[in-house]
């Protein structure tokens, strides 16, 4: 369990971000390091002024999926951002913004939520990933 869990977050919809947050929190609870690399629309969802907004669901969710997710939220399921905050409190979770995606979106480090630890390139991400799995969400 010493090899880190490495998540590349590409999609910016709430369902995929929630799935990633749950995977991260579970690993953090086991003491396993987690490296999260934010690209494209996932990075956009981590903007400080957007992180608490609704980000929609993946297309396959459809109306039925929307209804099920809304019911879970109404039952008190916390947001993916809150799940990630708690995972970070446990320690070992590092969240980095992809510098290329920062350029694409035209944003700087000050635009990102404090959940994001820094900005790095893909080479640094691979180096930190070690021999752990790469998961693309």
């Amino acid at each position: 369990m010493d090899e880190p869990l490495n998540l590349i977050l590409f999609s910016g919809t709430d369902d995929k971000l929630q799935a990633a947050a749950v995977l991260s929190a579970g690993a953090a609870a086991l003491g396993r390091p987690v490296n999260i690399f934010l690209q494209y629309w996932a990075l956009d969802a981590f903007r400080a002024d957007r992180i608490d907004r609704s980000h929609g669901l993946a297309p396959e969710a459809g109306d039925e999926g929307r209804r099920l997710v809304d019911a879970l939220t109404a039952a008190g399921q916390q947001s993916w951002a809150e799940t990630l905050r708690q995972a970070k409190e446990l320690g070992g979770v590092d969240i980095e913004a992809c510098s290329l995606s920062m350029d694409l979106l035209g944003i700087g480090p000050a635009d990102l939520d404090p959940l994001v630890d820094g900005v790095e390139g893909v080479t640094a991400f691979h180096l930190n990933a070690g021999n752990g799995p790469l998961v693309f969400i």
Partner: protein
Amino acid sequence: MGLIQIDRTLDARGLACPMPIVKTAQMMKTMASGETLEVTSTDAGSVKDFAAWSRTTGNPLLDSTSDAAVYRFVLRKA
């Protein structure tokens, strides 16, 4: 299993996966070695999750029971 002294309790009922384990890990960090923690949960994944968490982190799972849809675990901090 009434012989086990319970030092701390955590009510994780109503919390969805993985929050019962996350809150357990958070609380165990604040506990001293040898202290015990009783957790109650309604997440059906808890039974396998607590066994796996105990095995991986080395904190012994002293008891794992269920009553209706409530699961109860007792852990000892290593």
